[in-house]
């Protein structure tokens, strides 16, 4: 059987859940249907009494009909529970048909009675009662048609063969056919409406099932995530402890080294030696600060490095770095040069030096460069601090970081460059790499205009030295 769902699309056949629900409904509502049929039977018997049927026949009819309705109610309630779908359908059809037949029993009692009701009116009453009962059997089209066909056949036989008045067979048949069509039409409309409702219910159930399934998966994923978060948290705590211990252990020798260098500085030395001692002390202090930052970083478990921007003379920074790494560069057969600049920027000097140190050390140790240049260039969006070399270059800048972390190469682990990039972002600058394999690499730290100080009273150390010279 075909029916339409609310959007107007054709639902070609009853799906299994719909069929099952319909049969369950028929079986489950058998008690209610029986009560309704009992009321109809009482109504019909009283009307028959008004039409002349003797009371004893009416009461006997109601008693027998009541027994039949009780039987169908019990059948629906208990028999359907332990049956398969096919048998349940047969029982559902039987319930409808038997109820309808019980309603028609009045004809037999009328025929058998001494005082009979007026046949035509009585038949009209039965047809009316049958019409009222349409909604009770309008779940499946088959029992609906079968039961109403039985009603029409019984009425026809009663009127044609057992009527107490003379009637024309053709008139009776045509009128009953009209009644049959009206009943079937109404019943079919109810069947379609019920199927639409059922279709929506089934859809809803299916959607609920899908939603439940998704929810179960989601809960599982969330549990896994929670578990992995716990693991990560434990690992972080362990790492933090380790770093804290290492930091604590390193602080003491660093402090001792600084103290000893101070002692050396106080002793009589040449200028060159004093400068070297100062640079060494600064290096060790910087290492100490770095350790402090790492300990702090691990403590907060994110990049909450304290940024203290101050006015920095770029020339001082570059000069200091060139001096600091010239010895190391010489050892690695690399010539380190820097181009002086009078620019002053508002940036954390420690972080800036750490970025540049990382880049310079990377070039000296890992690039096999023979030339290294530190310089500054002006751009419209700010200034660029260059660390330019003529080394082997990076294979692919985009994938370099990912690969090098997992696979140690001659370029090192690449962590220095990653940290430099993060530090640059923390300072408000931007670090970019341009590289050609075999030709060299340009590390470009773009300091935006917002950090550049156009006019300041800051006097660079290099200027002081040149003046004094």
């Amino acid at each position: 059987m075909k029916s339409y769902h609310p959007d107007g699309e054709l639902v070609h056949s009853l799906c299994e859940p719909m069929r099952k629900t319909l049969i369950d409904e028929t079986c489950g509502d058998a008690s209610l249907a029986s009560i309704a049929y009992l009321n109809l039977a009482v109504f019909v018997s009283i009307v028959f009494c008004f039409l002349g049927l003797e009371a004893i026949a009416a009461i006997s009819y109601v008693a027998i009909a009541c027994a039949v309705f009780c039987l169908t109610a019990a059948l629906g309630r208990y028999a359907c529970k332990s049956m398969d779908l096919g048998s349940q359908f047969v029982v559902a059809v039987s319930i409808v048909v038997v109820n309808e037949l019980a309603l028609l029993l009045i004809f037999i009692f009328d025929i058998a009675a001494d005082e009979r009701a007026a046949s035509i009116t009585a038949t009209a009453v039965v047809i009316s009662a049958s019409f009222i009962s349409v909604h009770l059997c309008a779940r499946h089209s088959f029992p609906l048609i079968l039961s109403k066909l039985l009603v029409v056949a019984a009425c026809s036989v009663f009127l044609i063969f057992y009527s107490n008045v003379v009637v024309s067979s053709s008139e009776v048949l045509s009128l009953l056919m009209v009644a049959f069509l009206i009943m079937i039409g109404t019943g079919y409309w109810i069947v379609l409406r019920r199927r639409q409702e059922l279709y929506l219910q089934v859809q809803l159930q299916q959607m609920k099932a899908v939603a439940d399934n998704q929810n179960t998966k989601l809960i599982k994923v969330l549990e896994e995530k929670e578990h992995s978060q716990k693991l990560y948290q434990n690992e972080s705590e362990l790492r933090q402890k380790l770093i804290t211990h290492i930091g604590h252990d390193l602080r003491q020798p660093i402090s001792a080294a600084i103290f000893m260098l101070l002692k050396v500085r106080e002793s009589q030395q040449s200028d060159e030696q004093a400068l070297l001692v100062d640079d060494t002390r600064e290096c060790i202090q910087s290492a100490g600060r770095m350790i402090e930052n790492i300990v702090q970083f691990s403590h907060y478990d994110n990049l909450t490095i304290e940024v203290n921007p101050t006015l920095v003379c770029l020339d001082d920074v570059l000069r200091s770095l060139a001096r600091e790494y010239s010895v190391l560069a010489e050892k690695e057969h690399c010539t380190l040069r820097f181009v002086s600049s009078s620019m002053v920027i508002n940036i954390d000097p420690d972080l800036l030096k750490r970025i540049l140190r990382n880049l310079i050390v990377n070039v000296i140790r890992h690039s096999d460069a023979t030339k290294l240049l530190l310089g500054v260039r002006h751009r419209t969006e700010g200034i660029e601090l260059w660390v330019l070399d003529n080394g082997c270059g990076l294979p692919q800048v985009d994938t370099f970081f990912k690969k090098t972390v997992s696979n140690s190469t001659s370029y090192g682990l690449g962590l220095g460059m990653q940290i430099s990039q993060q530090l640059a972002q923390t300072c408000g600058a931007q670090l970019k790499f341009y590289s050609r394999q075999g030709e060299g690499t340009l590390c470009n730290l773009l300091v935006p205009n917002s950090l550049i100080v156009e006019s300041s009273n800051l006097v660079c150390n290099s200027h002081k030295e040149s003046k004094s010279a």
Partner: protein
Amino acid sequence: MELISSTKKKTEKKIKDSRLQRLFGSKYSIYYFVALFSFYVAGMLKLTDHILAKFINGYEFSGSYLIGLGVFFCASTVYLHLARRNAWLNWRYYILGSVVVFFPLVFAASALKVFINPNAEYIYVLNKQYCEIEESVSLCGFAFASLVSSMSLRALPVVLTVPAMFWYMLVKSESLFRERK
């Protein structure tokens, strides 16, 4: 003083409520209720009889109320047991249920009255009045139908009020379903 009197009233009301709950929330609450309402039903039927006799010419009392009350007691008890078993909290179960059950019950009560415990004089009067038969042992169909109709008519006030009262007093006061909860 007003405060004291209102507190006193509230306390009295509480005591009354608890007594009511003890009475109707017990194992036999349904029987108490139905017995109590049997008096109400008898009173209502008598009142309706008087009213109908006053306004309808030729209306006569149908006799004793014993069978009607017996049917009412049995049906109400069974219905309320079902209500308790299936936890019917919705008022529709009571109002619609009573209407659905009432019609066959009136029919059954009439049938019992006429055929189980026949009163020859009563049947003779009915047969003569409705079917113009003077000599008959059993009731004619038209008279029986009229009897059922008039019984339905006089039971209508009871049918409309009792279920509402049942629902309000048993379900609203939650005494009937306390055991289930």
